[in-house]
């Protein structure tokens, strides 16, 4: 009977491990990381696998010892328990070993974190009359509200007074659409995230990008897409999926009320700037007749929502 418990612990732990392995080994199941489509996504995934490797080692070792002990040392086993109170050498060893592993993880994490977040903090782009962050090809203002995303695309070069002015007032020709993020492959995209009501969190799984929007603040974020999933078809006047057939979504990751789960958007990565520009031009012509006032907090959003094209 005592062996039974050892086996139970073994079975449960192995089942857990097996679930992970199956999820990893059969991507068709859709139980593992979704597509990764940005430079940051690739780096985060590598880090994820590094941690998984170290954790798997630790997991197998410790659970193995536990399960073996249960097997080997039940009260029915011959002999008597050993009267050991401790062992300084062992203590030191097993303090240092995990420390080393953890420091490896930290060291590997730092550059990725720096790359993902340090630029633009504190946001220089928003101070004074700085124009664009110099390296950005594209600036998109994302305004969250209960319960959708409004994305503002600049169609001309940004005003001389700088990006801050653009973010709060904008150009008449700006394109504002709901829930669609359009970028092109290789573009260095600079997002400005803000909200008019509660905290939301802009989450794009395929980009491994997530950032809360904080009331009263504008938070810069950057990414660079590495795979494209659509192109603009001028004949049909809309974006069509390309051969990857990938459909990438945007979600909200911070509780923002009853319809939190409804803040679904889509990510469209064009193959190049040409396709993107064509889309932008087309969308703008479609919405030109409508008066696109700057996105004031309480402005009625109906005309902005319709700008979307599908």
């Amino acid at each position, binding site marked *: 009977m005592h062996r039974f418990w050892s086996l139970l612990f073994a079975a449960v732990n192995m089942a857990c491990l097996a679930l992970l392995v199956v999820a990893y080994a059969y991507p068709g199941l859709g139980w593992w990381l979704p597509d990764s489509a940005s430079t940051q996504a690739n780096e985060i995934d590598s880090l994820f696998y590094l941690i998984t490797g170290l954790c798997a080692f630790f997991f197998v070792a410790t659970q193995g010892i536990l399960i073996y002990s249960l097997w080997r040392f039940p009260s029915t086993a011959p002999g008597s328990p050993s009267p050991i109170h401790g062992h300084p050498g062992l203590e030191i060893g097993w303090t240092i070993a995990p420390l080393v592993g953890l420091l490896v993880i930290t060291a590997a994490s730092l550059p990725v974190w720096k790359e993902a977040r340090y630029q633009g903090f504190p946001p220089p782009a928003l101070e004074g009359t700085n124009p664009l962050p110099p390296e950005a090809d594209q600036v998109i203002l994302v305004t969250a509200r209960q319960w959708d995303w409004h994305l503002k695309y600049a169609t001309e070069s940004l005003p001389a007074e700088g990006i801050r002015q653009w973010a709060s007032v904008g150009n008449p020709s700006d394109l504002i659409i709901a829930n669609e993020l359009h970028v092109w492959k290789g573009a260095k995209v600079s997002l400005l995230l803000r909200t008019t009501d509660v905290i939301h969190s802009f989450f794009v799984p395929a980009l491994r990008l997530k950032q809360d929007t904080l009331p*009263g603040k504008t938070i810069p974020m950057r990414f660079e897409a590495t795979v494209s999933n659509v192109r603009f078809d001028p004949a049909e006047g809309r974006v069509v999926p390309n051969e990857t057939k990938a459909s990438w979504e945007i979600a909200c990751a911070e509780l923002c009320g009853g319809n939190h789960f409804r803040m679904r958007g889509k990510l469209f990565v064009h193959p190049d700037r040409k396709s993107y520009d064509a889309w932008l031009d087309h969308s703008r012509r479609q919405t030109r007749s409508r008066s696109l006032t700057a996105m004031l907090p309480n402005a009625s959003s109906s005309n902005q929502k319709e700008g979307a094209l599908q």
Partner: protein
Amino acid sequence: MNHDSHPAPGNFLTKYVFSGDHKIIGIQFLFSGLLFWILGGLLALGVRLQLGWPNQALNELLKWFPSLADSIPASWGSRISPEFYTMLFTMHATVMIFFVVVPWLGGAFGNYLIPLMIGAKDMAFPKLNMLSYWVLWPAFFFLLASFFVDGGAAGSGWTAYPTLSSATQNADIPDPGLDAAAKATTPTNPPSPTSMEPGLWERIKNRWNSPAAGQSGQGQVYWLLALIFSGTSSMMGSVNYITTILNCRAPGMTLMRMPLTVWGMFVTAILQSLALPVLTVALIMQFLDRTVGTVFFLPPAGLAFGNWQTGTGGGQPLLWQHLFWFYSHPAVYIMILPAMGMVSDVLVAFCRKPLFGYKPMVFSMIGIAGLGFIVWGHHMFQSGMDPRLGTGFMAATVLIAVPSAVKIFNWLATIWGSRIRFTSASLNALAFISMFIIGGLSGIYMASTPVDIYIHDTYFIVAHIHYVLFLSSMFGIYAGIHFWFPKMFGRTMNDSLGKVHFFLTFLLANGTFFPMHILGIRGHPRRYYDPTIFDWLASVQPLNQFVSICAILLGLVQVIFLANFLFSIFFGPKSGRNPWEANTLEWETPSPPGHGNFETTPIVLHGPYEYAVTTAINGRFSQTGLNRDQIQQGNHP
């Protein structure tokens, strides 16, 4: 003994209700925790019902319980409403954390065990102790009443982030549409001067009835009040515990001879007394924001909701997160350190072998507690906090995993070379260790800031929480209940039923919570009412359903435990003083101990874990050096 001794209680009321006896108070905490445990479990099943069968939840429910049909509002159809759903998970977490795990570990076991284990007659302040239980009742009241107020109970998550939880409309324009229009059309007829300034009470009511979201209205105010009272209770308890442990130990009970349970409680009490006041401040601030209109968490420009706006602000929503996590990160250790101590004691008693590395175990607890104060920011990596701070918090968080690992290694070394008796108590304790490994490892993923970008606020976090709180702390509590039940009630719980319960719970809890890692790796955000509207989550819906089925079964299985517990109180086989042949002081008193605990003041000669002593008659030394036979005959020196 140096505490104010108090007279033995006379009548029923002073004996069982307004009792100052730490044992009665502990049992009071145990039973109220039990009731809330059932409530919290039912709320969780509501959550799982929705996630397993989105939009069909009520149909599924009615299949099984047709009699519920009348109590479901017709307007709901077959759906739980999204707002109701937010209330379910908010109140589930609130109940489980603040009304089950904390009261059980700190309130029930802390009260019951500390004086017994250190050889004291009672707590240092029996009256304060009694008060610490009874101020929980206002908390119970507000918590339960909040389900019945307009708009229902709180629904902004157990973390209650502003501005969702705190934004309110201007007090004086409760209905912006009508009121403004009415004022505009009758300019020549100004309201009488006296009626111009609304009373304070009206302003307060207007505010709390005009929330940012349907679920953060009056219920949120009640939530805040409930937490303020439960915090007061914990604060009183902590001050009492620290004083008792420092001042009321029996002769010879040096700090380094205290059982780890007492160490766990001691460190927890210190954590709590230093961290809780900060939460109290935050709760008061949010309370004032919601009622009298202060602007602590309202950003300078105010907020604009669909058809209404708040007043002018001036504060910062992020401040709440800092204050909240400054408490709530230590709080997660408050919810596990006592369990770690209890598990160590249970484990050693059934391994019949000294605890490996007593001092490292103590120091790692202290280390966890100390580092616990500087890692709160790891909950805020994606919150908009300066990322350079995030880097610092990552470093601290990584360090805190080291003492956790040290504890695991020491437990393993304790088991190694022992002779384990498999009982319900020891199995639950072993499961604690095995499962805490998983919970600790998932913590490392989140400590790495870049990986946390992706898994923050996904089901990965939910998996982590439940591996450390359900599969660790709760298993620790199960172990503790099985182990100390004989002391509390003088009878033992049925071991076979206990093992059946353990077996099923162990399987089903893993079935419920392990797949959540997969959901999280897939990117499934937490607190989602219906993930199926997302294409990329469609593939994990079968897992969601599997989890729900396991969760429902897991809930059912707890009936075994409940039945065993209640039945054994009255009909379990009588146990002697020391059914497990353990060494610590509580086993030298009758079961249950009488008023004043010890017949004579125990004199402590040994550390708590002197097992496998070859020179001793029974292979062990109890802490007072008595051997078993003497104890059972009650022959005290």
